[in-house]
């Protein structure tokens, strides 16, 4: 058992909020990575308590404490689920020690990573900091990319609706980061010439499942059959790492507009199943870490 665990790649989770904690629960199930550290700044946080109970090493003294243990504990990958404000500093410290960084904040220092669309490319490029865009981005950019793969998309717009209960204080304090980061990833990774993102929080009780709608305007009239096939194939690809990712309606065609209506149900690992927004971020980040870890030659080079 111990031997087997030692073969897994050791990772650290920075940030003990909703995202960090949900990611920990998922990472504990991983065949590839081993969550060894959870780093917080509040000794009273639920996430740190759960991490300690799950057998992780924990600290509430922030990244500076973790840094002391990176070499000894052979930490290869760190997930940063803190905030855009501190990510730059965290990244600098981690990179100095050769740690691969997976950024779940909206800081977006490194290239955007949407696993179903461009993870293979990023691994080839050996990007040592990748950014997971936003929950809405993870849910919608694969669809924009699937449409762009068929024909040119002049404009891609997404509407992400999340349950109020699933939106943490970080998201709320800096909601503009969501719209900006997502819009720019719709262009860079989705392939739309122009991108726009809208986020809505809904306080309904019981909480609603995350809903995501993608609207695209194609340059030429849409090839309906090819787009439908491409979108369905992409949904299957995302569903490999986000099982609750489903098509509700569409693709609907109206002139050059293509609309796809999606729902994301979470696995209920930390927050309940309605928080598909949390799930899709953490599932995508875990997928990214696993793919990077499997590419072990590359990891050894970095270390």
């Amino acid at each position, binding site marked *: 058992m111990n031997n087997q665990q030692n073969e897994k790649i050791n990772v650290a989770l920075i940030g003990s909020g909703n995202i960090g904690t949900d990611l920990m629960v998922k990472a504990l199930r991983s065949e590839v990575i081993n969550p060894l550290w959870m780093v917080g700044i509040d000794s009273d946080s639920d996430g740190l308590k759960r991490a300690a109970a799950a057998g992780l090493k924990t600290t509430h003294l922030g990244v500076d404490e973790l840094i002391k243990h990176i070499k000894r504990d052979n930490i290869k990958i760190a997930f940063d689920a803190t905030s855009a404000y501190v990510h730059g500093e965290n990244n600098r410290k981690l990179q100095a020690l050769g740690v691969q960084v997976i950024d779940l904040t909206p800081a977006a220092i490194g290239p955007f990573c949407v696993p179903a669309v461009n993870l293979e490319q990023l691994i080839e490029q050996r990007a040592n900091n990748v950014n997971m865009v936003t929950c809405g981005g993870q849910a919608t950019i694969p669809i924009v990319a699937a449409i762009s793969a068929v024909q040119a998309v002049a*404009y891609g*717009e997404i*509407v992400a*609706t999340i349950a*109020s209960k699933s*939106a943490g*204080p970080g998201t*709320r*304090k*800096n*909601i*503009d980061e*969501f*719209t*900006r980061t997502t819009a720019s990833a719709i262009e860079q990774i989705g392939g739309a010439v122009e991108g*726009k993102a*809208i*986020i*809505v*929080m*809904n*306080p*309904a*009780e019981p909480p*609603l499942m995350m*809903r995501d*709608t993608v*609207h695209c*305007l194609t340059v030429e009239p849409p090839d309906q059959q090819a787009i439908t096939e491409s979108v369905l194939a992409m949904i299957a690809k995302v569903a490999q790492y986000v099982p609750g990712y489903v098509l*509700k*309606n*569409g693709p*609907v065609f*109206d002139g050059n*507009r293509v*609309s796809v*209506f999606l729902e994301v149900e979470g696995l209920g690992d930390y927050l309940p199943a309605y928080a598909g927004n949390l799930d899709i971020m953490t599932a995508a980040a875990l997928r990214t870490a696993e793919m990077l870890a499997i590419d072990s030659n590359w990891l050894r080079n970095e270390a």
Partner: protein
Amino acid sequence: MNNNKIILHDMCLRDGMHAKRHQISLDQMITLATALDDAGVPMIEVAHGDGLGGASLNYGFAAHSDEEYLAAVIPRMKQAKVSALLIPGIGTVDHLNMAHQVGVRSIRVAAQCTEADVTQQHIALSRKLGLDTVGFLMMSHMLGPKELLAQAKLMEGYGANCIYCTDSAGYMLQDDVHQRIDALRQGLKSETEIGFHGHHNLALGVANSLTAVAAGANRIDGSAAGLGAGAGNAPLEVFNAVASRMGIETGVDVFKLMAVAEEIVVPMMDQPIRLDRDSLVLGYAGVYSSFLLHAKRAGKKYGVPSELILMELGRMKTVGGQEDMIEDVALNLRDAACETLHK
């Protein structure tokens, strides 16, 4: 209560954009805004119906950009202050900065009433820029008075100098308005102004606005001839005439505002703004007023009754911004109808 002077805020060129599918021309904007200015209306809102940055496939692209509209109207105002709405999640501080640069004097930062904490960065910036800064609590019927006050206090704490109780669904009855405005008046700082934004979906636009004034509100939104989402806003010329009879001072010329409504706004309408069945459903079921025309279009396209779409959106407890769900619901209703036929 020092309710002697009530500030009227006209919504034709923002909320009215919903009723015009955001297609108001620059000439129409200028004509209407200058006439409102001339009638003495002290505040006029200009923007996409869904606020700055609202231009989208989801809500509709406007005939012109927010910047073009604002730049066309603002230099022509003699006394009226021009405001702009900003809904975080749709628009960003970039839009706010643009509005400030073209001369907007008042920013109304709007959020679903349960989510005031998304407005911090926008309210703080608006205040820092020295603008009249309003926290606009949409769908206020969804919270009780105490809970609404708690959200209002967040906005006040971020720097809002005025808080609105916004009846986006035109759902509130007079007692609902009284309780909420009263809670805000009692609980907020005495220097914080309080406003009410009504919709006429239960024909209570004017009555609710009067109730708000009696409970301590000093800013009232409405639009000339009611040009706005759903069955329209509180018709401003009617409110102004009633206020005049009641001795409530607005500083707005009763007959000039009547003329604006009759001679400029009514001829602009694509359809009569009236309390039809769909608008009544909005008010009855508590559905966001700007869903109206989207639901009518989706109903027509997919062959399902628009009032059923709206009822379903009410049952789902949708909030402002979820226009994407209208087509989704219409598709589900169509599919359900097909299944029934095949059984």
